[in-house]
């Protein structure tokens, strides 16, 4: 027995509410973030990830009191991402109670910021989020701005570069699968996880509990992230863990 594979529910937060869309559009309200965080903690979530998808920058700081409220009563690791542009944003989120900060678009625009943040706060709190999409040539390409902007970067090479700059973990989302409930992109997940020495979180596409198990067994993911299957009550975190355990995966019960 050893390290457990983690199940991480993801809360997409827009203007103070948890929402969920398909392929990053068509948002549907899923409830109050603090209440949802409490429920997932009770059900045995291993960590929680909050992604601030608020488009408008004047509403951006709404996430801080939410993180403060969650951190006062939920004692598991909290990751927060969305709109992190400078080292000072990392500091503000950590001070609000986040344990890790996820950096996405800024990592592409300014890779040095990842190195600076890791040097300042430690690799353990720097997660680089990568939105991957299969491009016209059939290659996996890094996209930014919620999947709208192509970067020309190869996903595996980019993930490796982020590891070398000091990222402590990679959150890998398949844009092709996100919100589709057709399962993780397993080949993509495996390619990235096998190329790196740091943990990789698989994200995008979970529709069934078997998809979570497949992410670990076939995708070689160290952790699996899902949103809608948990938000709308289809499955509890506990059911997901039991299913993974029945598939021979070590979990924390």
């Amino acid at each position, binding site marked *: *027995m*050893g*390290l*457990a*594979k*983690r199940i991480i529910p993801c809360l997409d937060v827009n203007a103070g509410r948890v929402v969920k869309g398909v392929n990053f559009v068509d948002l549907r309200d899923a409830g109050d973030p603090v209440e949802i965080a409490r429920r997932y*903690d009770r059900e045995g979530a*291993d960590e929680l990830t909050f992604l601030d998808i608020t488009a408008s920058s004047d509403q951006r700081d709404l996430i801080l009191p939410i993180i403060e409220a969650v*951190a*006062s*009563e939920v*004692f*598991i*690791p909290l990751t927060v991402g969305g709109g992190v542009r400078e080292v000072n944003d990392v500091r503000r989120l*950590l*001070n*609000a*109670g*986040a*344990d890790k900060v996820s950096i996405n678009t800024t990592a592409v625009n300014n890779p040095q910021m990842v190195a600076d943040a890791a040097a300042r*706060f*430690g*690799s*353990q*709190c720097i997660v680089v989020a990568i939105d991957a999409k299969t491009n016209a040539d059939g290659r996996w390409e890094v996209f930014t701005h919620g999947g709208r902007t192509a970067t020309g970067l190869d996903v595996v090479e980019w993930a490796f570069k982020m590891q070398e700059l000091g990222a*402590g*973990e990679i959150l890998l989302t398949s844009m092709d699968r996100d919100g589709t409930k057709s399962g993780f992109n397993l080949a993509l997940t495996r390619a990235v996880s*096998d190329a*790196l*020495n*740091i*943990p990789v979180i698989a994200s995008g596409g979970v529709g069934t509990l078997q998809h979570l198990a497949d992410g670990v067994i076939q995708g*070689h993911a*160290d*952790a699996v992230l899902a949103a809608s299957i948990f938000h709308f009550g289809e499955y509890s975190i506990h059911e997901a863990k039991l299913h993974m355990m029945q598939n021979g995966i070590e979990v*924390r019960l």
Partner: protein
Amino acid sequence: MAVDIAVIDYGMGNLRSVSKALEHVAPAASVAVTADPEVILTAGRVVFPGVGAMGDCMAELDQRGLIDVVKQAAASKPFLGICLGMQMLFEHSEEGDVAGLGILPGRVLRFPAEAMFDNRNERLKVPHMGWNEVHQAVPHPMWNGITDGARFYFVHSYYVEAGNPELVSAFTLYPFPFTCAVAHNNIFAVQFHPEKSQAAGLTLLGNFVTWEGNV
């Protein structure tokens, strides 16, 4: 007035999680996150946390004149080291090839750079990140109410090799057994993060706020 619990703040990492968790388990206790030697040395008990790189942590402690303060606190009252706050108690770290406080004998080593595999032949990543089992080596008041083998949350790339096996209070497999908790008189120190380890972690912190520093 002296505080019940001082959390030593030397500018490294997020101490909010630690203080929030202590306030949660001991709502009546006064908890101060502080760099003030006077507050630390008059507190009832002291928590010594830490994240980041050991060289930076030691430099920050030194710059704030806290090295002797930590040594005095560790010699005199219930003292809990967490993560880097455990590693710094030892003599030396491979991370940056730096000296620690040398309060306890032993050194801090990195998990091997070459790929590690568990007994199912699954690759083990570094940092060691997530929930792993803590096997209690000896009974201790800090383990009261915690099942042997309970899972705690870890995130680290370096681990302690205690110079004296009698210091080891618990171990974890990754894939080899490494020391994840040490106990010596009034000192208890853990590699994992009790403040992020849900029920088991809160139980451990609850034990600390009532522990008188004896085994």
